[in-house]
């Protein structure tokens, strides 16, 4: 006993005992706790490598959580993903609202200029003229004594009232054919009676040539002449409206509406309401994911309608025609995860892994859908960053969209190169400024700011909306040295401070998709999907391959070239291709763009048409030039190329205006 005590007094023995005790405690702990055991020791694993030799590797085993821990981890993960999905759902909803808002404004514009409203305005004008003539007859004793004319005027008055009531009672779409005929008959009777009264009153004026009160009668006669003119025009308009073509259009509209209604009912989207914040926040993950998918499908329709409305407003065509021309985009709504996401109480590690993977997939798919929705909202408002439309009142938005639609319509005609001489120069800067909703004196614009750098949105040249520019820049045609440009033009997509010194820059990097079958007539009127939306991940079915007779699977292909002339891949005759790229401008910049193509080409810069060349012409660098505006930051460039019978080339060159002397 004494020996043991003595030994204990020795520090080395004491340390030995202490270490032994600690080791024993650790061993007991490891024996009792499996988690600690699996995470503490490394296991050596023998494996065979590719050459068949035996290798020893350290195998690390992570602790296997128990059922309670698995559920806890799953709950935490679910909470995080739920927040993320809520955010995405709100982004998609806001984007759809923005798209709908712009569509409503455009449709309102269309409604104001529709044929039916035009007739309504004319009918009101007729009524007002009748009232004026009526008042003149009542206030003038001589006229009041002309009983037959007064009686006829009473009939004219009641007819005018009847016509106005008919037009107000029906809309263009629900006017029954019988009513159309009645309206036309009433208008014809009114026209004849007005003419009759006018002839009689004219005779009366001639008879009373030198009488003192003839002046008042002359005024009444002039008013009657105006009434006669308007009533004639009114009858012509109604006859045109009543014609076969108009009836067909109405039938088409009715058919389209019934088809849309049936489609909506079948898909259960009828009555789909965009949810409020509270509703979104109350939802669980599976419901949220489903809502995001539903909203995306709804957003596809809203966007297609928006594109049709913009097309109708800029091309001055009816909504029905525009809807027929617009390709309905379809966003990929992600995988069906309803079962996987419902199993939110995993009990094993495997179940948890499946659930976790489903959550990640849902988050990623929702992210993609939200990104698409936001890009579309930006496209609909004509704003690159979306910031320009923030904080606008409805009236400001309406005015901006009206201005944009007007400018786009005018740009369409200015962009056309058909019938213009080689080297013609068209100035589109004023119209582009209107379309960008930029103040000509600078400011506005919506290019991106980069890295805290403020990009200048002010255009440098003295520019007025009418397009008056310094002498050196107003020539109608320009000559260029094609050989020199072919030799010296530099490839690139960035226009910075040194761009003016560099001269012409040709776009060398493109995403190209095609071929689609080229329509034989009015080919530009057939709009293929990229004109509605550029989605680099989307695939389409193209024209049938001449050998296999199977439709080609089309996808965007990345092309980079050292040649000014770009040759689309998979070149086929009678085909349509699209090429997309972006151009960076260090500041808001005025540039000249030269588009040349074999055969036809159409170019959009920031969704605005700046070039359209029809006809199967060979490639010529000086086919024409357009002075345009680039926003500070990134500018979208889309080119449609059509190939006729043989080879297909296109080229797009940019140069800052100050670098040229066109």
């Amino acid at each position, binding site marked *: 006993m004494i020996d043991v005590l003595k030994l204990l007094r020795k*520090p080395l023995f004491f*340390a030995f005992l202490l*270490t032994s005790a600690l080791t024993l405690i650790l061993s007991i702990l490891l024996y009792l706790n499996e988690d600690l055991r699996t995470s503490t020791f490394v296991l050596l694993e023998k494996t065979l490598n590719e050459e068949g030799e035996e290798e020893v590797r350290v195998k690390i085993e992570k602790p296997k959580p128990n059922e309670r821990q698995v559920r806890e981890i799953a709950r935490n993960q679910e909470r995080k993903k739920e927040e993320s999905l809520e955010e995405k759902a709100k982004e998609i909803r806001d984007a759809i609202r923005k798209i709908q808002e712009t569509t409503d404004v455009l449709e309102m514009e269309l409604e104001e200029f529709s044929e039916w409203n035009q007739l309504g305005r004319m009918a009101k004008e007729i009524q007002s003229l009748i009232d004026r003539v009526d008042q003149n007859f009542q206030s003038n004793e001589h006229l009041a004594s002309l009983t037959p004319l007064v009686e006829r005027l009473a009939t004219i008055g009641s007819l005018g009232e009847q016509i106005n009531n008919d037009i107000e009672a029906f809309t263009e779409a629900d006017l029954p054919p019988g009513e159309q005929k009645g309206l036309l008959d009433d208008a014809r009777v009114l026209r004849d009676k007005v003419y009759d009264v006018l002839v009689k009153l004219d005779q009366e004026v001639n008879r009373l040539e030198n009488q003192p009160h003839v002046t008042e009668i002359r005024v009444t006669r002039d008013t009657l002449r105006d009434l006669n003119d308007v009533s004639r025009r009114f009858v012509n308009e109604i006859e045109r409206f009543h014609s076969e073509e108009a009836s067909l259009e109405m039938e088409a509209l009715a058919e389209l509406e019934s088809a849309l209604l049936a489609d909506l009912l079948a898909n259960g989207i009828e009555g789909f309401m965009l949810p409020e914040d509270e509703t979104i926040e109350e939802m669980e993950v599976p419901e949220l994911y489903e809502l995001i998918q539903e909203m995306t499908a709804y957003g596809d329709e809203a966007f297609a309608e928006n594109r049709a409305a913009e097309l109708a407003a800029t091309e001055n065509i009816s909504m029905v025609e525009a809807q027929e021309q617009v390709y309905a985009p379809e966003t990929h709504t992600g995988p069906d995860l309803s079962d996987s996401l419902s199993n939110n109480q995993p009990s094993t590690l495997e179940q948890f892994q499946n659930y976790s993977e489903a959550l990640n997939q849902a988050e990623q798919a929702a*992210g993609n859908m939200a990104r698409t929705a936001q890009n579309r909202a930006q496209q609909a408002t004509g704003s690159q960053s979306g910031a320009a439309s923030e904080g606008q009142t409805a009236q400001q938005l309406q005015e901006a969209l009206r201005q944009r639609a007007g400018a786009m319509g005018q740009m369409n005609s200015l962009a056309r190169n058909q019938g213009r001489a080689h080297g013609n120069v068209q100035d589109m800067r004023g119209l582009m400024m209107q379309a960008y909703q930029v103040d000509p004196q600078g400011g506005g614009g919506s290019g991106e700011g980069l*890295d805290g750098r403020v990009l200048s949105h002010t255009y440098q040249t003295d520019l007025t909306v009418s397009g008056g520019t310094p002498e050196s820049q107003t020539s109608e045609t320009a000559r260029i040295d094609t050989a020199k440009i072919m030799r010296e033009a530099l490839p690139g997509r960035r226009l910075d401070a040194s761009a003016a010194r560099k001269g012409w820059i040709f776009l060398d*990097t493109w995403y190209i998709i095609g071929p689609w079958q080229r329509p034989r007539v009015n080919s530009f009127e057939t709009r293929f999907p990229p004109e509605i939306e550029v989605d680099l991940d989307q695939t389409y079915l193209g024209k049938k391959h001449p050998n296999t007779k199977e439709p080609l699977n089309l996808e*965007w292909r*990345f092309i980079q070239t050292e040649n000014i002339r770009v040759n689309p891949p998979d070149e086929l005759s009678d085909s349509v291709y699209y090429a997309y790229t*972006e151009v960076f401008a260090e500041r808001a910049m005025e540039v000249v763009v030269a588009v040349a193509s074999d055969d036809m080409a159409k170019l959009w810069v920031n969704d605005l048409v700046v070039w359209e060349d029809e006809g199967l012409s060979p490639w010529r660098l000086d086919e024409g030039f357009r002075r345009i505006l680039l926003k500070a930051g990134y500018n979208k460039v889309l080119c449609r190329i059509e190939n006729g019978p043989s080879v297909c080339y296109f080229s797009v060159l940019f140069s800052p205006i100050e670098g040229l002397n066109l």
Partner: protein
Amino acid sequence: MSRSRYEEDEDVALSMSPLIDCVFLLLIFFLVTTMLKQDLKEVEHLQLPASRSSLEVPPDDSMLVIAIDADADIYLEGELTTRSELLDRLRQVEQEEPDRRIRLDTDGETPFYRLVEVLDALNFRNLNNVGVRTYHEKYDD
């Protein structure tokens, strides 16, 4: 008056044994608690191309990792992504952090057109702090 037993010892010296014990205990503690950190941004099925001139660089969590596999699929931070999403993300990086380090992981069999496409996208967005990850026997074995 009793004297301490140690004072009776004639050879007074500092014992190193407890110190060594403590050092061993600390060593065991760190061995047990140290966890091997896994690169979460890595795409596991990539077979990196071999290189003899690569440099070993310390791991950096703030690095943006873009990977392209042999099927030309693109991965962003270890997750499968699309071209549009990648371009949007690069635009975001350019606006917020243009000097951010970017690591490009490719497979030995990655189609060259996809590599050029991604490099061009980085170049166009002025993202120049880009490194390519390769396999080197000296560092990876």
